[in-house]
């Protein structure tokens, strides 16, 4: 192994074949405070993610308790960063049933194994602001203490609530392990190819008629910074991670230079189902609720505890727009049109000679 500081820590990162976890692993490898990074994922890393995993000890395995116990016995793990939480069912990997299995049962097994590791000091868990749900009866801004009024409709949101429940239970049994739960707003950034980025780069973007939900994003790089700090520093507790401020859906679509096409709310679930069938768009029920009612969280606790403020929602989104090709209604084109119209009007008025008013 490479040289490291004598008291360097060993970190286990789950879900490491996916973008966010892989990039976290890469950052931890580069951190002198970290001696070893162990990556765990049932699937082999894709070509896109592979370059991030140099220096990471990879284990291709499901989150099975027996395997995990063996892994913990062989390696002296200090910190577990649990990022193997899927946000959407993958039709090639077993769909919703497999997603729930991985998210909920996987977390249960991981925590069961963690409980038997006396050395373990820290647990960092990726959660989501989807845990708050989205409805018209909710307060405008969610703080970490806000309980969701209704059980969220979507699978992912329910998984997240279950995962957080297990983490709380684990915390009661292992009071010596510091648990950090990070509720992330949807990620956006230059590189990430997510459903969200695909949505905002459609030529015509479907929205809900008569609704302009408030949205928040977090830049993927800032999310990584928070994850990294949670691993190497001590920040126990639950934190919302989002960019300050909001963009409304229509505002975001306009900034991306696209055109919104409002769809009637009663037919929304049907339209979503058809879009899914045609593989145009794949949105789950909780995301539909988000696009009707919006969701904004308070990040005061994060900024205070971590001494770090993610770039604002608007900045993160504008960076994403700059990294992708501008749509037909881009800012520069509209500015040009504005100048042109103003010139035309001035010319017309000058030629009429009627400058007295």
């Amino acid at each position, binding site marked *: 192994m490479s040289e490291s500081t004598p008291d360097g820590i060993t970190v286990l990162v789950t879900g490491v074949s996916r973008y966010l976890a892989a990039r976290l692993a890469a950052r931890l490898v580069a951190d002198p405070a970290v001696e070893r990074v162990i990556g765990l994922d049932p699937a082999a890393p894709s070509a896109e993610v592979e370059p991030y995993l140099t220096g990471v000890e990879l284990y291709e395995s499901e989150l099975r308790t027996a395997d995990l116990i063996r892994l913990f016995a062989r390696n002296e793990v200090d910190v577990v960063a649990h990022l193997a939480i899927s946000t959407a069912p993958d039709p090639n990997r077993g769909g919703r049933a497999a997603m729930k299995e991985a998210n909920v049962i996987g977390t249960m097994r991981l925590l069961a194994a963690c409980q038997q590791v006396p050395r373990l000091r820290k647990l960092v868990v990726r959660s989501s602001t989807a845990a708050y749900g989205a409805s018209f009866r909710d*307060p405008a801004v969610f703080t970490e203490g806000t309980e969701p009024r209704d059980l969220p409709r979507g699978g992912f949101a329910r998984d997240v609530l279950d995962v957080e429940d297990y983490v709380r239970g684990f915390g009661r049994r292992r009071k010596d392990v510091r648990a950090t739960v990070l509720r992330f707003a949807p990620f956006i950034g230059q590189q990430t190819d997510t459903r969200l980025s695909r949505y905002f780069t459609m030529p015509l973007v479907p929205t809900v008629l008569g609704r302009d939900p*408030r949205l928040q994003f977090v830049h993927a790089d800032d999310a990584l910074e928070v994850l990294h700090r949670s691993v190497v520093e001590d920040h126990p507790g639950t934190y919302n991670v989002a960019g300050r*401020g909001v963009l409304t859906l229509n505002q*975001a679509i306009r900034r991306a230079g696209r055109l919104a096409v409002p769809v009637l709310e009663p037919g929304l679930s049907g339209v979503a189902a058809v879009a899914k069938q045609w593989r145009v768009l794949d949105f789950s029920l909780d995301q539909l609720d988000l696009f009707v009612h919006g969701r904004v969280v308070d990040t005061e606790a994060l900024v205070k505890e971590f001494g770090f403020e993610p770039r604002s929602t608007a900045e993160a989104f504008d960076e994403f727009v700059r990294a992708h090709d501008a749509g037909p209604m881009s800012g520069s084109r509209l500015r040009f049109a504005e100048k042109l119209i103003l010139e035309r009007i001035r010319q017309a008025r000058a030629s009429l000679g009627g400058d007295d008013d």
Partner: protein
Amino acid sequence: MTEVPEPRKPDVWDERVAGFLSAVRQRLTGDYEVDEFGFDKHLTDNVFLPALKPLYKTWFRTEVTGVENLPTEGGALVVANHSGTVAIDAVMLAVAVREETERYLRLLGADLVFRMPGLSELARKSGATLACAPDAERLMRTGHLIGVFPEGFKGVGKPFSERYRLQRFGRGGFVSAALRTGVPIIPVSIVGAEEAYPMIGNVPSLARLLGLPYFPITPTFPWLGPLGLVPLPSKWLIEFGKPIETASIEGDADDPMVIFNLADQVRETIQQTLYELLERRPDPFS
């Protein structure tokens, strides 16, 4: 080459055209700010307020007194009577605050408003949010003026025969929110809304069918169809009362005795002022 307007004298129309075009471009490119509650200042100042001003000034001939009672900065809770079948008094109160001061009134609305498409979008963009303790306290803590109508649907949905008689004030949630944040309560009395849409009947079965708290019958609605939505041109008076300080009684925010006493005090003040305003305006359509 054609002549471009020369700088010798300011060209008013050129400025107006340029200003309008730049505002349109800002809208189309999403180049405006929306706060965490969804308040869109750009849209409110450029579209909503100009659209409502004729109704406020010419149609209702609104007269406002006691504006000096509104603090020029910091949070405050504006409490008003609610009437007039549709909550047009809330909208006019917000216009009054913006017209008479430099501030915006952030209204707290019933969840019915936020359930409905269209209306929910307009409400959020004009600065309103859901009437719940977390939102109210957050706005007051960050120094906003908020507007509440504790009578709720009991106020707007009461028959014309009970006009200007204040209804019950609910559980006094607004009082405890003010106590917790220590902001002053400003009682406001609004006269004129009752005659704008006088509710002379109610069809409960239709209301149930539509999921509404009541289905109003007015002298013009639904008989004249969409024309029945035009309010009658009543004369409006709005009076802002003396602020009631709550900072000194902070800490008792959960004591029901304190809450009910304070709520009653606010209610009495509004009711008394309503009677005084009505004496000043003997003819509702003067």
